[in-house]
């Protein structure tokens, strides 16, 4: 067992940190130029064929930088779904465009009043030579900017996955922002699609598999956020003077910061434990991912919230950076199943 990053991984981490610090994280085309949109894509389709460890390393840096672009939704979840479920020439063509950043895809999985249930109430009915999709999808990250949606729908008792153009007639979107200012949208679907838009009639396992990869990336993203919030807090305590001395000289505050490190370090261990589970059987992987999710997001609220608290009032402003980690924690936790959902999944595994 070896916990050290290899030279490519070190390079990926360092270059990502440098780029994000300089350029910010708000350029999808920038991600494409750095090769990040191809990390999760296989080499035979022009990608880098990166493993879970590589994805987690990059996601951690994106979280540290509070990057707003939908890396996890587009470059991980959608990319892995296309890789798994699209076949032949179209797979390479689609992945090629996604890697180049010229075509954005995102998954539309969740529905109103259904929390994190993946079995859809959206239906697909054969209609002439194609399918008629009817239903509603919510919390579709990047929904307003994506070119295509990967839509789950019930078909013949199974879960089917369709590729639906966002601007197609009958796709009625409403864009909004999440609490942490990420772009997303809800969709009312009443749309007919060509037969070849059905990617799979039995997609549930593939969706779960791709979701687990996306989930672990979101955990890594949050871990990067926690680390950054803790570092910011320690730095702030060393510069701010109250009662005639640096705040960092108060042991109560030193120990509060140490506690944040202790908890965040445990999250890092959960993440490192879950990464090799992607090389093993599905049940163990699901359990390891859910364990990591529970530890990550239960800890993230406390760590980022305490980072706000230890800054005092300045930490509570939107102008100051540290509170945005807390906002991101709250939203990220709810994207692919929350702490209670994953604790139940862990217990059922």
């Amino acid at each position, binding site marked *: *067992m*070896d*916990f*050290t*990053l*290899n030279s490519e*991984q070190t390079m990926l981490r360092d270059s990502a940190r440098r780029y994000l610090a300089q350029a910010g994280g708000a350029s999808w085309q920038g991600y494409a130029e750095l090769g990040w949109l191809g990390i999760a894509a296989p080499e035979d389709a022009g990608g880098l064929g990166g493993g879970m*460890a590589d994805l987690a390393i990059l996601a951690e840096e994106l979280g540290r930088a509070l990057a707003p672009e939908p890396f996890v939704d587009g470059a991980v979840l959608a990319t892995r779904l296309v890789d798994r479920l699209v076949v032949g020439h179209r797979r390479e063509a689609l992945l090629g465009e996604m890697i180049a950043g010229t075509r954005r895809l995102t998954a539309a999985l969740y529905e109103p009043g259904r929390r994190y249930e993946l079995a859809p109430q959206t239906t697909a009915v054969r209609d002439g030579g194609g399918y008629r999709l009817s239903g509603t999808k919510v919390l579709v990250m990047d929904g307003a900017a994506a070119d295509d949606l990967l839509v789950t729908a019930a078909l013949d008792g199974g879960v089917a996955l369709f590729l639906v153009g966002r601007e197609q007639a009958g796709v009625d979107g409403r864009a909004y922002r999440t609490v942490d200012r990420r772009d997303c949208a809800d969709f009312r679907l009443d749309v007919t699609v060509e037969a070849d838009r059905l990617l799979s009639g039995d997609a549930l396992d593939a969706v779960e598999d791709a979701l687990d990869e996306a989930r672990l990336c979101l955990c890594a993203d949050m871990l990067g956020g926690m680390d950054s919030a803790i570092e910011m807090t*320690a730095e702030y305590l*060393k510069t701010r003077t109250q009662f005639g001395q640096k705040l*960092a000289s108060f*042991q109560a505050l*030193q*120990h509060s*910061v*140490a*506690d944040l*490190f*202790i908890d965040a*370090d*445990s*999250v*890092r*261990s*959960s993440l*490192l*434990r879950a*990464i*090799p589970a992607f*090389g*093993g059987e599905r049940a163990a992987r699901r359990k*390891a991912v859910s*364990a990591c999710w*529970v*530890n990550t997001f239960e800890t993230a609220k406390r760590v980022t919230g305490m980072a706000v608290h230890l800054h005092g009032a300045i930490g509570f402003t939107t102008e100051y950076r540290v509170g945005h980690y807390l906002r991101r924690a709250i939203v990220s936790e709810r994207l692919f199943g929350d702490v209670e959902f994953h*604790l139940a999944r*862990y*217990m059922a595994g």
Partner: protein
Amino acid sequence: MNLAFTAEDEAFRQEVRGFIAANLPPALARREAMGFHNDRATVTSWQTALHRRGWTAPGWPVEFGGTGWSPVQRYIFDRECGLANVPEICLIALSMVGPVLCRFGSPELRERFLEPILRGDYWFCQGFSEPEAGSDLASLRTRAVRDGGDWIINGQKIWTTDAHMADYMVCLARTDPEVKPQAGLSMIIVPMDAAGVTVRAIETLDGDHHVNEVFLDNVRVPAGNLIGEPNSGWTQAKFLLEHERTHNAYAGMLCRYVARIPALIEVGRANGLPETQATEYRRRHARLAIDVEALEWSVLRVLAGQPGPALGAAASALAVRGAQCLLRAADLEMAILGPQVAPAFRPEDGVPLPAFAPPAAAGRTTQYLYWWAATIFGGSDEVQRTIIWNTLYR
């Protein structure tokens, strides 16, 4: 980065399991599961079996009798021992004094002590803490004064684990009072049967006997019993305390708790625990299991890591997390058993478990109470937090 167990690791796990199953006396495992400390007689056969197999001292260099295991193998061994209710044997001699002698001891001291320690013939206690030197170890007052070919030691040690059954104490004493506190200390091996050594038992909250006061009154020991150079005791003590830096995570013990709690919930159900409460306890168990799994990987990270400040901070985090998890685990067990854990229980002293309590209730309060000591020993949680701040953020 390679984070998976190899086929060799899995084979080693099976080998360890087979060895334990073949050699651990069931009565010893039962007693260990209750959580009471063991005396020397009860663990002799197990230590002998370990010694025959060459597995007594995983932390020693191979040339002195260590196992040569990889960090992962060490972790696997500890985990399997935890799961199988293997008792710790003479931790001070095997995990602390032995490595210090291997690193700093003269050829004569190694010759005299290493092999008997491996065999289980010599047990050690650790004479560090004093009434006025707990977390602040450097302020200790026990003096050693050179007199011809001997050192004459005067002072008092406290919280001395196993002093009542040890053959020797490794005693930290002040050999130079003129220099700054850390610089004037030496580590000296003191025979517990030497004239002037008095041991007094301290009864602790858990109701068990493991720590003592030790009075050193003009104790005369040969100069050769001083380990390494005079006045280098602080370096040696730091080496000793850091040598087993993952020990205080008690990962193996925590795996034991995680493994046995589901069955305990069923015992509770058979003894009137309502299903709604059982559901809540299953949830608490799952939450604990998630944290223990993370802790195990933290142990692996520290075992496999490169020495440095970050590793020290990670080890301190482990000690704090470990104690927190132990208290949660033991508290959960008490909660599951409810009123059945209230009666006192001391099998050796003729205080049996009352008829209404199931066998699984034995020792639950003793162990819970003991884990509060884990928030103190080996550097209190507050000392660990200060180490983390100082190494990472100051």
